[in-house]
């Protein structure tokens, strides 16, 4: 970019107009310099975001139907439950019995005040620790307490011992 600043033919608005030939040459140089700067700087500003945008992000994709591994049936044996993260939302996975259809998953956010629910292996119900809201692990329905609505169901797929959550 230095040549432009050094350019002796760069006239201020009030400067005396140089001879025709000299002026034409310096004008051409100036125009080239300006065009070069403009094209380069604008292209850099436009192309950088576009190329970065196209590079796949390291974080897993979040499209619907994407499967998230929540754990294995060894992590979550029959009669237990665990809160896992699906993307940025907490999900409670419960292994009610050893069959694949016995693995259930619900949004772990209590419908009362938004506390994170847990699974009580003794009484075999989902319990919100804040105000003792109880949910049915079979369908997410409210059994007792203040929650106004059932927990949102998350689809689960069990393959061998692996438990996958399916994004809805």
């Amino acid at each position: 970019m230095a040549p432009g600043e050094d350019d002796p033919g760069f006239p201020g608005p009030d400067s005396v107009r140089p001879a025709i030939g000299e002026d034409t040459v310096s004008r051409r140089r100036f125009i080239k310099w300006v065009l070069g700067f403009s094209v380069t700087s604008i292209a850099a500003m436009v192309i950088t975001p576009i190329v970065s945008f196209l590079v796949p992000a390291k974080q897993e994709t979040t499209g619907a139907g994407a499967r998230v591994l929540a754990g294995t049936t060894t992590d979550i044996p029959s009669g237990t439950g665990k809160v896992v993260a699906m993307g940025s939302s907490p999900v409670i996975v419960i292994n009610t019995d050893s069959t694949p259809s016995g693995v259930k998953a619900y949004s772990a956010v209590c419908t009362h005040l938004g506390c994170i629910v847990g699974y009580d292996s003794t009484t075999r119900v989902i319990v919100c620790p804040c105000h003792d809201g109880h949910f049915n692990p079979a369908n997410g329905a409210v059994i007792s307490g203040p929650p106004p609505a059932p927990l949102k169901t998350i689809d689960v797929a069990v393959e061998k011992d692996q438990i996958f959550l399916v994004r809805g």
Partner: protein
Amino acid sequence: MAAAGRAEGTGSRVGDFFETRLRIGPLLSALVHVRIPIEARPYYLGGITLFLFGVQVVTGTLLALYYQPTPDAAYDSVKYITSVVEFGWLIRSVHHWGANLMIICVVLHLLRVFAHGAYKFPREFIWIAGAGLLLATIGFGFTGYLLPWDQRAFWATTVGTEIAGSVPVIGDGLLGLLRGGADVTAATLSRFFGMHVLVLPLGLGALLLAHLVIVHQLGLANPKRPEPRPGTFGASATAAPEKLRPFWPDYVLDEVIAWAVMLAILVILASVFPAGLEDKADPLITPQHVKPEWYFLSVYQLLKLVPRIVGIMAPIVAIGALVFLPFLDRNPAVTPRKRPIAILVALAAIAVMVGLTVWGQYS
């Protein structure tokens, strides 16, 4: 610009390499010649709109690479674009603001052309193509608004499509056609996405081509005096030869400067007010203040105030009048002073539209 520069054919080696193989020089030199009267004051609005359309094409294409047009995935994919993908927030925000600015610029361009009487003979078809471009732009905005599938998008589309539902006789059919069913559902999203990325770009592209080709052939209008009609005695004979301004490079350079300013505005808006995302659309929870996009607010508010039949027929008649304006307004004069009725009607229409929009916003 670079290509046009080469076409000037200074006999550079690269220029010769292409020129001998493409023979494109004459075409390019023809393209860079547009008749521009020295009195013309286009304020570069048409060119800025063209630039914004280009921005929308680029950013829209990029967004489509990540976007998933199903209700289950749309919201998450937009959230992913906004929060995870590098510069995703920028691309999305630029697309968001580009859309709004484009509608504003199209309207300002239309008002400028109206004020200068530039739609009169022989430019009737430029105007009609331009009116089509305005409608296509609004169509873009309307279909694009739903795509993030958040609460605001869902409910704005719900009430927006309801406007179509109140058209007499064909209302229900039109509503079903728009929504792809009785309600805003997955079918609506598919339709809107298809319209937004296939139908409207092709339609707008075709209209734009027509618009630009005719402008290129006829040049800009002189806002000081009407174009002489063939056979009109004396018009061309008495008038002094028109002073012109070179399209290349003067006019083009001005446009480029305006584009750079517009790019700066876009970057500022996108950084300071990035496109947000509300909660995911939930058909069971109606938010407190449901409103359509701002450019539909006037129609929406009108519908609330007057009987349905009036509320829906008034905009339809207005659009019809707008499209066929060159054939309705037979006054040959172009200076505002000589066509007071047209100017007053337009001012009244603007006042009503702005008034209704503001009223709709604050009600």
